[in-house]
Every structure is written in C-alpha cells, then in structure tokens.
C-alpha cells in the first residue's frame, strides 16, 4: 500500500533539501491536508460531563430464601450425567414433599435445577430447567397441583461442591426443593 520506487526517489530528493534547510531531526511547517475534526466528546458547554464511556454503578440485593418446608425430609434430588430422568431412589423424597404440599395447599414450592460445570453456561441453564421440570412432573403424578410449583434453573452457576472432578460433578447435578 505504501510505495513505488520512483516516488521514493522523488521524496528522497525533497528530503535532502528539507534536511539541509532544517537540520536533521528538526522540522519545517506543514501546509498540506487540513486536520479533520471528529468531535465525539460528551463534554457539554457547562464543562465536564460524565464522559462518553461513563458507567453508573448499580448494586442489588438477593431475594431472601423462604423456610425449608417439611422437617426430617431431604430436599435434594440427584441426577446422572446428561440426564433429567428421576431415579427410583429419589421418588421417596419427592413423595414426602408431595404429601406436605397436599396437606398444606397454601405453600408454594420452587424446584431449582442445577448442572455440573461442563459445557455452555446457557445450555446448562436449559439442562437444569429440564431436571426441575422432571421433578415437577413426578410431583404432579403424586397429586401436587401445577400452580403450587415453579421450576427454575441455576444451570452451573450455584455449585453445591467446588472442584473439577467426578465427585463435585455428581454433587452438583441436582434439583433443590425449596419453599417460598
């Protein structure tokens, strides 16, 4: 993009003159192309504004957890890798919550789906959702009304156990049964 040889030679001539006139490393005034002004500054007439890249900080709080629902009953349902199928061993826990919800029709349960850390965060939100919906379907079979439940997903964002190993992954593939 830069040059042809003949132009270079012409310019060398000019430079020799310039160098003689101005001395090496010094300069002559320029009267060629004008400088284009590109004003994207957010400064206003009154002086300093927040600036074109200013970001206003926001701090938010977390919603609080409700109470824990039935006593002496587990509230975690575990899943196999890449699976949303409720395992036979989990049916007892789900049934206990279903009985509690049928006996306390004013209570609302939230089924929070979780995944292990492998793969896309967004795809894992969808996988966790599938696990939560799977527990909700089992609850429906056990007679819980659909409007007493909400299935949501945290994907891989709230691991129960930190670490990148099979033990942590197993602990994190779960649905937590919570009450609001």
């Amino acid at each position: 993009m830069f040059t042809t040889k003949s132009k270079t030679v012409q310019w060398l001539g000019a430079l020799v003159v310039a160098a003689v006139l101005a001395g090496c490393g010094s300069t002559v005034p320029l009267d060629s192309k004008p400088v284009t002004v590109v004003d994207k500054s957010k400064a206003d007439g009154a002086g300093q504004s927040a600036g074109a890249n200013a970001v206003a900080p926001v701090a938010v709080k977390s919603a609080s957890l409700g109470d824990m629902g039935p006593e002496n009953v587990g509230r975690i349902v575990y899943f196999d890798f890449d699976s949303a199928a409720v395992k036979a061993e989990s049916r007892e826990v789900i049934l206990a919550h279903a009985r509690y919800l049928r006996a306390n029709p004013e209570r609302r349960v939230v089924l929070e789906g979780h995944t292990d850390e492998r793969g896309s965060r967004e795809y894992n939100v969808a996988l966790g959702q599938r696990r939560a919906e799977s527990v909700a379907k089992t609850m429906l079979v056990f007679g819980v009304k659909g409007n007493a439940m909400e299935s949501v997903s945290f994907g891989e964002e709230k691991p129960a156990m930190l670490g990148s190993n099979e033990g942590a992954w197993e602990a994190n593939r779960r649905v937590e049964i919570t009450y609001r």
Partner: protein
Amino acid sequence: MAEYDRQGSVGQPPVTGIGRRQLLGGTVSGASLFLAAPAAFAQFKVEVAGVGLTQRPFALAPFKRVTQVPVAVDQVVIADLERSGEFRQVASASGELDENTRPNFEPWRAVGADALITGSINQVAVGRWDVRYRLWDVVRGEDLGGVSFPAQDSELRLAAHRVADSVYEKLTGVRGVFATRVAYVTADGSQNRLWIADADGESPQAALDSPQPVISPAWSPEGERLAYVSFEARKPVVYVHTLATGKRQVVANYRGSNSAPAWMPDGKGLVATLSLAGHSQIYAIGLEGGRPTRLSDSQSIDTEPTFSPDGKLLYFVSDRGGSPQIYRMAAGGGNVQRITFSGGYNVSPSIAPDGNRMAYVGLVEGRYTLMVMDLTSGAAQPVPGALDVESPSFSANGRMIVYASRTKGRDELITTTVDGRVRTRLLGAKGDIREPAWGPFRD
C-alpha cells in the same frame, strides 16, 4: 506460544535499501518476548503464536504537549496497534513531532518504519483537550491525513483509542475496534460483578454488583445498553441495563426460567429462552412489554439464540437430534436447518459481522474447542491453540474473537485473531473472570 516485546529489539535485522521491502511485514518467528505493560494489571498481554506472521512496522514520534497530560496517549496508541497482531512498533529516538510538522523521514526509514504517527495533545480549557495526529507514509514521504479528537479528562484514553482506530483504518482499510468496549463478569465468593472495560481491558467500571450470579451479557446494537441474565430474584430473569444512567428494566420475568438474551438488530426487542411451555424454547420479546411470541417449536431444548447481522436468520442450539447442535431458522420462526454435523456437542454460536462466518464451541477430543465455520461452504476449522473455551464473541470488525478459558483451574479472557496467530490474555485480579461480550462500533 511466544510473547511479544513492544521494545522491539528482537529479530530485527539491520535494514537497508530495497531489502527492507521484504521486511514490510517482518516476520516474528518463534521469538519470545514480553509486552512490558506499564500500566494496570488488567491489560491484555500480547502473545504471538504464528510463525511467519506478517506485521507491518510503524513508528510513533512522541506527541507534542505543553502541559502535563494525565494519560499516556502515545503508549495507548502503540499498544492498541500491536495488540491487533497486524503491526509492530519500530523504535527510534525522536523528539516530539506535532501534526503540523513535516518530519525528516530519513531516520524513520533507517529503522524500517513504513508509517509514522505524529501528533499533539493540547489543553484547550480546564479539563478539555484536543488530541490530534497525522499519519505519514514513510516510504513515499506522503501525508496520509490527520484527525483531531476533542476530549475531556475522562475521555483521553478513549481519544487515544480513536487515534489508533483511525490509523488502523487508514493502513488496513478496515475499521478499528480499539474504541469499542468489552463486557465481562467476575465472580468471587458471593460477589458477582458485571464490568465494562475498554477493548484493551483497561479502565474497567462495575455496572452491576450482585450477591447472585450474572451471565450472558449482550450488547445492544448502539452499544449503550446491555441485556443480561441475573439470578438476584433466585431465578434467572432477563434485564436491560442502560450503562450511562444505571437504569435497569426487567424484560423477561416469566414463570420458570428466562435466559440467553440476544438483541434484534434494530435494537427494538430481544429474543430469549423461556420455559413457558414447560421446556426451554426461544421467544421474541418487545422492550415495551406485550406477550412473548414463540419462535422455536420443538419438544427439545432450544436456546442460545443469536441473529445474523441482517436480521433475517436466527441461529440457535437445540438437542432435537439427540445431542446439542447449532441450527438456524427464519427470524420469525420456521424453516429450520441444522448447521453443525461433526462432533457430539456444538454450542454458543457467534456470527461474524459479515454474516459469513460463525464462531462456536465444539467438543473435540474431550476439549471445548473454539471453532470457526465458513457459513457459505459449511467447512469448519478449529482456531489453533484456543482450547477450554466458553462464550466466544466476534469483534465488531470481524478480525478478532474474545472468549473465556479455564486452564489449570484459572479463568482468563483471551482475544485471538481468527487464524489463531496472535492472542492476548486478560487475567482477573482474583476469582473467576468470564462471560465476555465484545461491544459494537460506537458513533
């Protein structure tokens, strides 16, 4: 992998006469150098992986200044150009040269520079500056034009990035992305922060601070707003957040989960994944409220939607074929085509601004690998060296991709040229750093 030294003393044979033409794009052959970043820890560090990499040599004479300037504008310009992987600085002892001075080209030719940047930084009022530069074709001794960027104190780094963008465009014909912004998330215990930084990782500002996770930031087309998923309500809810004011709007808080927001190219609405149907499906959502319109129609997971730049196609991930793969459909739904066929796990599509290439994450030999597919031919290639990848995002000019990587238990953000030859990495101060999203051009 080599790191690149901005001091430029490496692998530079003496240059004379015509021989220099071969060097116009001198090669960096495995030399391992370190970019001595003078400033904050957060800056992206440059690494050069390619052998025979073509980089154009440029020089910058210190900009003329009368008063103390709070930002090292010259250094920001040099670092920007080098981070692109397309340029390398050749140093020469020089006094200040402003944009109104015709330089003596001889010393710049002697060090092998193709282009020379001169300029000035003048204080025009209290806290108000005029940053000017002029670009010279050193070989021809030709004036390639100059630009003035007015700025206030808080905009001086931005003005420096604009100088670099302007130089980059004059020399390559492609618009630069140095004045764009990058959003990313850090998580440290229960402190989750959404950050907005310059494209070089500097000047980070926290837009959101939450005890619950934040994921999936997505820039609005004009670059003033972000959509994202926040779990502060103990479920995933989609917000739109105006950065300059801090105003937040809940745009999707439906029963179940609300996630994976992507902007319509006109900025008037979003698409997102909702579980209203009892499983994850893609919906269109207006910013003014109204009922979401269901766009995908399967009994499977459909998520991670993203539009083609012309707004006509919607790319997304679905496991309708038994494993997660990338598909596309008409923007209003229907006419679904599968796009990825190789491998059992292909997710997180990002479409290049020209609409012809797609970056995504594929599971290849057990590693989550950054892939780039030519959408016209369907041919896909891994980006060399880009492993353990999450959340790839194209730069606005399509020349680079930013992604998150977790290696050896440490999270970092990486930018790479699409050919994988030049990478930069940004380490978090502590905790995890992830979910990068490269912002659009801003006018």
